């Protein structure tokens, strides 16, 4: 099982780096969906020996939400807004990739500083989780489109989910469901908000929402 976990974690890191360099919004959404599936798989692999039905149910719900519900909501928004690409982000794609390497270094450093109690063979998961959070925050800060910011929020949430899974271990099912429910509600609310922004302004560029100052 350890090999499967490690393979999933490496794939997760690759999806993070791909998000730094992708301009097509459809591709971004797909990558975020793949991440959701990977997270679910990691949760399943990590508990494969003990076979707890609760964890399997929650991981499956998570996969369904992140791989089908979120992409459906976001792709609908893309169709409504008629946007395909993130054009001229605040930080260019090449520089973004450089930033991703720096952030990866920072996440390894940061996780080395945290004195967490981890099982054997789990040492790569924490840096991957923190890297995923950084990716999400970066997308929120460095991109113009409201949609990319929403994807950033999902990715950030993914990272924290992974972190919680490894660092805390057993979280009551009710709490996990509450957290998932919040994420679904957040993405739905953001989707509706983007629909209104697009209808009112004919664009979803957040840097052009700048009439309120001071």
């Amino acid at each position: 099982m350890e090999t499967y976990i490690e393979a999933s974690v490496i794939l997760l890191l690759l999806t993070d780096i791909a998000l730094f360099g992708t301009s097509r919004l459809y591709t971004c959404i797909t990558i975020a969906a793949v991440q959701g599936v990977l997270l679910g798989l990691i949760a399943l692999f990590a508990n494969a020996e003990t076979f707890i039905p609760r964890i399997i149910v929650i991981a499956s719900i998570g996969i369904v939400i992140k791989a089908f519900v979120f992409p459906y909501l976001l792709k609908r928004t893309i169709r409504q807004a008629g946007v395909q690409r993130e054009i001229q982000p605040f930080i260019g794609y090449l520089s973004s990739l450089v930033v991703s390497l720096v952030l990866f270094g920072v996440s390894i450093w940061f996780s080395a500083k945290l004195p967490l109690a981890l099982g054997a063979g789990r040492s790569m998961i924490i840096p991957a989780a923190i890297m995923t959070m950084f990716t999400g925050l970066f997308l929120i800060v460095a991109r113009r489109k409201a949609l990319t910011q929403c994807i950033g929020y999902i990715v950030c949430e993914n990272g924290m989910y992974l972190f919680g899974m490894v660092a805390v271990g057993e979280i009551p099912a009710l709490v996990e469901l509450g957290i998932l429910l919040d994420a679904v509600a957040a993405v739905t609310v953001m989707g509706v908000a983007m629909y209104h922004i697009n209808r009112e302004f004919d664009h979803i560029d957040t840097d052009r929402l700048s009439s309120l100052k001071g």
Partner: protein
Amino acid sequence: MLILPLCTGAVAATMPAARKALAVMCTGILLTAGFGWWSVVHVVCHGTLFAASDWLFLDALSAYNLAIMLLVFSLCACYAYVYFSCELRRGQLTLRQARLFTALFSGSFSTMALVLIANNLSIMWVSLEATTLVTTFLIYLHSSRQSLEAMWKYLIICSVGMAFAFMGTLLAAAAAVKGGSVEGAQALLWTHLVGRASLCDPMLMKAAFIFLLIGYGTKAGLAPMHNWLPDAHSQAPAPVSALFSGFMLSASLYCIMRYLPIVSSAIGSPRWATNLLILFGIVSLLVAAAFIIFQHDVKRLFAYSSVEHMGIIALGLGLGNAGVFTALFHTLNHSLGKTLAFFSAGRLGQIFKTTDMGQMRGVMRISRVWGFGLFISVLALIGAAPFSIFMSEFQTVKAALDAGNVTAAVLFLFGAGIVFMGVLAHLIPVFWARNESDVSLVTTGLLEKFLVFFPGVLLLFLGIWMPDFLHGAIDRAAAIILSGGN
């Protein structure tokens, strides 16, 4: 208490007429508030209440905050009826909007109550995040470009803030698990954690508190994470602004208060956490003071004043002992004062059809009741004697001097002084200048008089004399923050 407002919200959302929907919502909120008061009184008399196999609980700290919340929500619900009735007369509010408002307003009541009564720290987080999502569309009730922009800022900044808070919650849980003090399933039960906090890993707990302070601080509007606040407060309809300022910000600070005893006992000394709070408090105070000078819009002015007061509460929490007492007292005073301020500003804004202070002139001549409300609330908010905010600010300075923190006291007085002059310079013409526009004299109903009179008198009363039961209640709540109630 959680379900009743949800039900009335759902019923209100199906009402055929807007006015009926508002009335149903008011009844629902007031009924629930009655029930809530009963449980608050129960806690004051008999001690902590538990429910749902310890997942929900109400101790002195949450009961005190719940009492403030019930007060603010009841006032806001009545005010919403008055405010939106006026809009209905002018045809500015459609049935759909009224239904949306009632449903979301009732929903936010439930989620905020859950923040206060949740024993599990992650449930507390889930419900505070839910308040963000529920209140988002309240800002955008009146479709306009500005409110849309404010709504998006609010949504993104607060969501990211809440993500930080979630990370902090996870780190706190990890600290507890690492220390071996708790089983996984109980790792986040506050009552469980607080007794065993000294076993938690101090390093992880420090990291957790930094994330929590930034995360919940964003939602509480502490500078420099306050950017969403003035936009959201100025663009939301007045009942919603009053609710935001009056209680939502305090609810977020309440979450920080919950963590204070755990963090202090895990690290072994409260100094580290309280110094951070003092820093954020002073920065908020000074940033707000600087921005208040340049405001044109009365609601934005009050929004920055909220940043200032949140800073004062954080400062009080940071000063420890007597400071915590005044911070809790200040929470009550600020909620009352700010609710009244937004009520008056909103109503006068309706009368003048603008909230620009350059065009609102001579409000005292136009509407004696609401002008008076604005006058009282402004005097209270800038800390003029004999209102209760003066008392709590005075005690904060005293607590700072007692704690030997002269720098904090001086910076506090400096910031508060700037706010005092800045606000008065803006608002004196608003009260008494001659009005050239064609706004005519407005009559006010009995309910409106009550809405001005009640918080105003309460502010004055608490400034002059503090009843023993209130003193005792705040003392017990402060003991929980200082030592976990042991």
